[in-house]
């Protein structure tokens, strides 16, 4: 059986045992065959025809939905992947009835999981999957009324099941529905001699939430989809520095002159090197980072800010190291606190 399409392009499809009756090769279809198209119902194969679509010659299997005569065309090479299957056999139908009449354990209460699983079952679960949806939602309806979407899903699943059972048993749909509900809601005092129900349909496991690996943690933090918004050039690290050290702005501005003159390319490398390096080495990238934060203001404010910077220097020097010690900030943020303190120290 091919499961539903993967939720993420990187996730590989889980290979599960095929549901009984799934058509693996379109060549086995012959005109007059009755097949079940998932979520559509029972169709009769009309034949194979060739069509020219967008310059491509496609071989299409033409089917006619029995319920209303609607035409369904499926490319021949897509037949194995859409879950087309033969109408349920007598053995399968018997299993369905024994499943419907069995006691049902507690239904799934998380509506998101339930809705998703039910949609998967309708597509890839075969006739038993459809019966599971009907039974599951019916059991839930005894606890509380179904919300609109699930009420519709319940009605659709019931419709599919009724028609497949009717075709398989060769009876009228209303009679098939009576049989189904006789099993699902037996009259008071009626007990069936049930066989063990068939194994429930296996659903492909869902991809788990993707957690960034240890190495890509920083990258994950910074990847906010800015490139998609056309803001790929925005230096978020530098912008955060400006936000983090508002009190030291004066000092930062005061030291802009030399920082601006140096190249900006060394900054990320220095950030990656960590704290083990000497102060001399760290100083240059920090200045560059500060320069990035205020590229336009720097030249003007350099002279103006000298006096206030000198006044603020003493408290800044005390505060900054303490902050560093208690909060080992990520590498991108480190330059924000340090340069101000050092620069203040130099001026002093």
């Amino acid at each position, binding site marked *: 059986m091919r499961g539903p399409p993967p939720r993420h392009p990187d996730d590989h499809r889980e290979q599960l045992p095929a549901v009984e009756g799934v058509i693996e090769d379109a060549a086995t279809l012959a005109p007059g065959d009755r097949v079940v198209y998932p979520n559509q119902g029972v169709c009769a194969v009309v034949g194979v025809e060739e069509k020219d679509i967008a310059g491509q010659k496609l071989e299409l299997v033409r089917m006619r939905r029995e319920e209303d005569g609607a035409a369904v065309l499926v490319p021949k090479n897509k037949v194995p992947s859409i879950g087309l299957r033969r109408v349920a056999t007598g053995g399968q*139908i*018997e299993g369905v*009835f024994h499943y419907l*009449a069995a006691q049902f354990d507690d239904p799934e209460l998380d509506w998101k999981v339930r809705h998703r699983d039910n949609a998967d079952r309708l597509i890839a679960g075969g006739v038993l999957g459809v019966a599971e949806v009907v039974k599951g939602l*019916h059991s839930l*309806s*005894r606890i509380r*009324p*179904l919300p*609109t979407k699930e*009420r519709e899903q*319940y*009605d659709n699943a*019931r*419709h599919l099941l*009724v028609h497949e059972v009717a075709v398989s*048993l060769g*009876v*009228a*749909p*209303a*009679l098939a*529905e*009576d*049989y189904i*509900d*006789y*099993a699902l*809601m*037996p*009259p*008071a005092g*009626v007990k*069936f001699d049930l066989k063990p129900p068939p194994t429930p349909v296996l659903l492909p496991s869902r991809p788990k939430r993707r957690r960034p690996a240890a190495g890509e943690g920083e990258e994950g933090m910074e990847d906010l989809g800015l490139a998609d918004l056309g803001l790929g050039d925005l230096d978020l690290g530098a912008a955060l520095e400006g936000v983090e050290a508002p009190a030291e702005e004066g000092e930062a501005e005061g030291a802009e002159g030399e920082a601006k003159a140096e190249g900006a390319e060394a900054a990320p490398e220095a950030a990656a090197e960590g704290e083990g390096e000497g102060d001399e080495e760290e100083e240059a990238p920090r200045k560059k980072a500060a320069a990035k934060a205020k590229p336009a203001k720097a030249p003007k404010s350099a002279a103006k800010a000298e006096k206030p910077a000198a006044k603020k220097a003493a408290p800044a020097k005390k505060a900054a190291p303490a902050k560093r010690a208690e909060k080992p900030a990520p590498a991108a943020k480190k330059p924000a606190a340090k340069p101000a303190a050092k620069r203040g120290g130099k001026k002093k």
Partner: protein
Amino acid sequence: MIRIVTLDPIDPSDMAFLTATLYRAFGLGTEHAGERPMPREAERKDGRVDAVKVLAEVAPVRTFADDKVLYITASPLALPDGPLGEPPCWGFSQYGGERAVISTSRLPARGVSEASIENFRRRLAREAIHAVGHLWDLHHCYDPKCAMHPSWSPGLPANPEMDLDTFCREKSERRIRLAKT
């Protein structure tokens, strides 16, 4: 249009109540279209009548596109055996089709008191709405208060409602709107 055909005699006041109720439930004109004999082919050895054969063999009445015909009989109905046995039968419909049949044999006795007559009429109307609902593509409903809930369900109250629930009513209205006529 809903046409009611009787296979056995029925009280005119009950018929009047039934036509009025069906009109309210589906918004379609309802009339008594006469009587027809029970087809012999449908009779079974156990004294019951095969519901599927009744609809196949009964004499037709004059209808137009999208007309629904409801047959009412006093004989007990039977259905063919299913995988888990024979389900009890209050009525049978051609799903999305034209004909349905219901039986009064399983309904509470009509009696002579006002209460019993009222009770009988309400149950008859419920079964009629249920059968005509199938003709308009409605499936069974899990809500015991809805007329489309299976009649044999243990959850059905002693005096069940004779109305459709919101989902079934809206679905039937949609079907009726989309009908050819």
